[in-house]
Structure formats: C-alpha cells, structure tokens
C-alpha cells in the first residue's frame, strides 16, 4: 500500500531534553480528507500534531509528506513544503488588520496572492466586511476564521488545526466545522486536534484516539462513533 498523503509514522519523542511524550504514535491523513485526533486531557493530542509539524524532537519514527521524508525539516521549511498550521492560542496578529493578517500569511509567497485572499474572503465573508479592522477586536469565532484564513494564504496542501473550536459557542463551532469541510472539498487535507470529540468525529474521514501518547483506537469517524468501547471511554456513553 502506498503512503498516505501525510504521515507521522511510529513517532516517539518529546520536548527538548524532556521525557518522551509520544510512544510509537502514528497519525496520517489522505489527500482532501479530514483526520481528527481525539482523546482525554494530557493524551498528547496536540503534541502528536506538533510532532508532525516539527515543533518537537521526533527521536524515532519519521514524518513523510507525499512520500518524502521531512522529519528533519524545521517548521518554517515545512510551511514552504505546503503545510499550514493554526496554533491553538495566539494564532493571529491582534494589532494588525484582518487583511494584514492574511498578507502576513502569504509572506513567503512571491507570486500574486490576491486571488487566494479573495478565496479566503469567499470562504469567510464576514472577514471581507471587517478587512480593515484590527483582528484583536473581533469575536472569538471571527478570530479563528482569521487564523484559518492566515494559514490558507500559503495555499497549503495540508492544513493542521490545533483545537480550532476551543472557547467558541456551539453555534460558531458548527459553522467552523462547515467551513473546514468546505476547505477539505477544495482538495486540502485537514489534520486537527479536537476536544469536542463527538462533533469532530462526525465530520472526520479518519479518527485517531490517543491515550498517553499511544494510538488507542484508529478508524473512520463513523466506526469510532459506533465503537462501544470508544463511546464508553471517551464520548460519555
């Protein structure tokens, strides 16, 4: 079987000289699909995603994008390779306008990024209205849209989201998920970490349940939702 589009294969590692947090953990996403990492608090969900993005030492295992080994690349170089990352917090430039945030997202591009910006505005129309407002003045949900929009400006082939719905209301959450599905439909792979496991798995093509830095359950979103043990342990029945 050929490699998935992006795979963190059997990753073991931790921050700096600290102990290992991940243990032979595997995370993968196919082209244009949505993969979701869920699990209890402290299971290493965000850590697994940061490992894929190169923000911690992967001591064993490898990260491959389109079959190419990128384990040794810095996060910045991975951005150049077509990976977009939306951190959980501090993910926008609060003192800059919405449009400037998007421009900064496109900083590494040398070509004309206007069309991409139009696409982002089409995806998040509210941002077009608020393009000249400082991003820090927007509501929580709108800020997340700016954050996602900023990451999309590099025209990534894979978008990684760290708990994009943390701290937003349920209505805004549904709206954000809809948008994320829309992004995936354009052929961009989505890898995201979510606290709201049930809703996330509902939209996921692939789900990973992590426990203490290891893969506990893996399957399609529907499979996991149907799995009695997953339901019992992580989805509250």
């Amino acid at each position: 079987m050929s490699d998935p589009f992006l795979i963190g294969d059997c990753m073991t590692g931790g921050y700096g000289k600290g102990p290992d947090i991940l243990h032979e953990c595997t995370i993968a996403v196919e082209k244009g699909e949505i993969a979701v990492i869920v699990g209890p608090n402290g299971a290493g969900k965000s850590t697994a995603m940061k490992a894929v993005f190169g923000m911690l030492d992967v001591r064993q295992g490898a990260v491959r994008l389109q079959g190419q080994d990128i384990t040794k690349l810095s996060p910045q170089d991975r951005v150049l390779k077509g990976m977009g990352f939306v951190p959980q917090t501090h993910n926008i430039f609060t003192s800059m306008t919405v449009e400037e945030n998007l421009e900064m997202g496109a900083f590494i591009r040398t070509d004309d990024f206007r069309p991409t910006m139009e696409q982002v505005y089409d995806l998040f129309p509210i941002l077009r209205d608020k393009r000249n407002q400082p991003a820090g003045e927007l509501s929580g949900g709108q800020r997340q849209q700016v954050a996602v929009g900023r990451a999309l400006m590099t025209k990534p082939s894979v978008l990684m989201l760290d708990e994009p719905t943390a701290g937003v209301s349920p209505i805004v959450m549904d709206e954000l998920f809809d948008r994320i599905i829309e992004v995936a439909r354009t052929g961009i792979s989505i890898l995201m970490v979510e606290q709201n496991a049930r809703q996330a798995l509902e939209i996921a093509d692939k789900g990973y349940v992590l426990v203490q830095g290891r893969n506990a359950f893996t399957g399609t979103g529907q499979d996991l939702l149907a799995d009695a043990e997953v339901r019992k342990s992580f989805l509250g029945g």
Partner: protein
Amino acid sequence: MDFLNALVVLANFVVIPGIAYGSQLALGALGVTLVYGVLRFSNFAHGDTMAFGTMVVVLVTWWMQSVGITFGPLPTALLALPVGIAATAVLMVGTDRMVYRFYRQKKAEPVVYLIVSLGVMFIMAGLVRFIIGPNDQSFSDGERFIIKVRDFKQMTGLDEGLAIKTTQGITVVTAIVVVAVLFWFLNNTRTGKSMRAFSDNEDLALLSGINPERVVLYTWLIVAALATIAGTLYGLDKSFKPFVYFQLLLPIFAAAIVGGLGNPLGAIAGGFVIAFSEVTVTYAWKKVITYVVPDAWAPEGLVQLLSTEYKFAVSFVILVIVLLIKPTGLFKGKAL
C-alpha cells in the same frame, strides 16, 4: 493687547521650545520603543547611541566647514546627517552581530539583554569620550533665526517679540518627515508589516516564514537613523555634550513608558507630554501672568514651580504617576 502679548510670551518661551524639545524626545522614544517592540528589552545604551551618531555628525560637519562646504542658511550638520546615520547603522548592526545575536539565539531573558546593554553603553560612552572628549561642542551654523524678535515686533507692533530659531523649525519639520516616513514604512511596506507582525506575535511570525534576523536588522537600521537624527537635532538646538545625552535616557524612557512601551504612536505622544510638562513646570510665569491679570494682582516672585535643575524630577514624577495609575501607558503598549 495685553492678552496678545501674553500669548506671544507664552509661545516664545513655552510653546515653541516645548514643541521642539517634544519632537526631539519623541524621536528618541521611538528608537527605544522600536527596540522594545522587536527585541523586547529596554535599551540603556540608547542615550549613548544618540551621542555616537551625533558625534559623527559633528566631526563631519567640522570637516565640511573646514573645506568650505555649507548648506546656505541651513546648518551644515544636515548635510553630514547621512554620514552619521550610516556610521551609527554600522555600529548598531555590528553590535548586534557581536553581542545581541548570541543572546537571541539562546532566547535569553529580557533582563539579561538589559544588563548586556549596560555593557554596550560603557563601550559607546568610552568610544565617544575617547574620540571627541567629554566637553561641550558646538556645531550649529547657518542662519540662526527664522523669525527674529525685532522683526516680529515691527511686523505686529506688539511689545513682546517672538523668535523662532532655525534649529527649532528644522527640528519640527524633520521630526514630522521622519515620523511620516516611519509610519508609512511600518504600515505600507512588506518589511514594515513583517516588523509589526514580529513585534505582535513572534511565534506566529516565524510560522508565517518571516525571517527574524531580517526584522532585527531593519530594526537596528531604523533605530540608528532615529537616534542619530534625534541626537543631532537636540545638539543643534542646545549643544552636544556626551553626558547630557546619557541623561536624556530618563525623559526618553519616561516618554516611551508614558505612551506605552512598544507603541510608536504612544512614544510620540509621550515625548510631547514629557516635554511640555518639563517646560511648563520649569518656566517662570511672572511675565505671562502680569500681562493677563490686573496690575494690582501682578505676582512678586518669578512664579516658577521648579528650578530648571530639577527638570529630571518632572519626567520622573510623571513616570511614577503613570506607573501607579496606568502601568501600560496612555496607549496600550507592546506591539508596533
């Protein structure tokens, strides 16, 4: 008529000097605030950086004067300014390469930078005193006044005269131009925006592919220009003495903090707040009051709140009040 005379006296001794001094402080505070916003430390070497830049300008001015190059009615120092900026820029970038970069790579704490900047201050202070000595140097030439007291009196027929020194006019014009260019640069160019982004959120800037070394390089270049211009304008307006430039640290820091450290708009506002407070508190108001109130109420004393020797106390008191009441400054600090 008396009222007009009072206004003229006020303009002559408070408003015009205040605007000029405020512009100088604002340019100085902008330098401090830029370093704080991008490199995240309070640069105690800034006063001596200003002294270094001004010293180069003074030396080049003397050389130009000696070979007969002048700038007509304007001070020759303006012609020498680019050389001063270039020399200071070389010094700043060199210092960054040899000193600060190491701590950046180590991700050192801001206090460590601050102490490092004390070492840099020592070296610059030594360098300046070694080259030009610790004494007062005058390097202003050209036309001394834009408006002379006598001409003003003749023009208006008032008893009181108004003088605008060339250096005051140049200070204000230069400050406006510099600030306009700086804000245009920060708000409209790719590099300027990347500096603001870096100052706002360093991690996200890195994720967006902004090269921190480039941002830092541009910051030092701008700071070198601001410091040299501020120092030269101050020197033209008053005189150049290395120790005075060190002492300017206090009003400059006060201006930057009052406005909100890391906020360029705040630095400008802070500069004028400090300058006007200093001038009004140390000005002897007797003349103005005598014109405005009936003769019988005319004050006997000078009506000077504080003697000029205590002008530092003014910046200090304002600083303390701001720290006590609104430590983030008038404009919210941090982030360009």
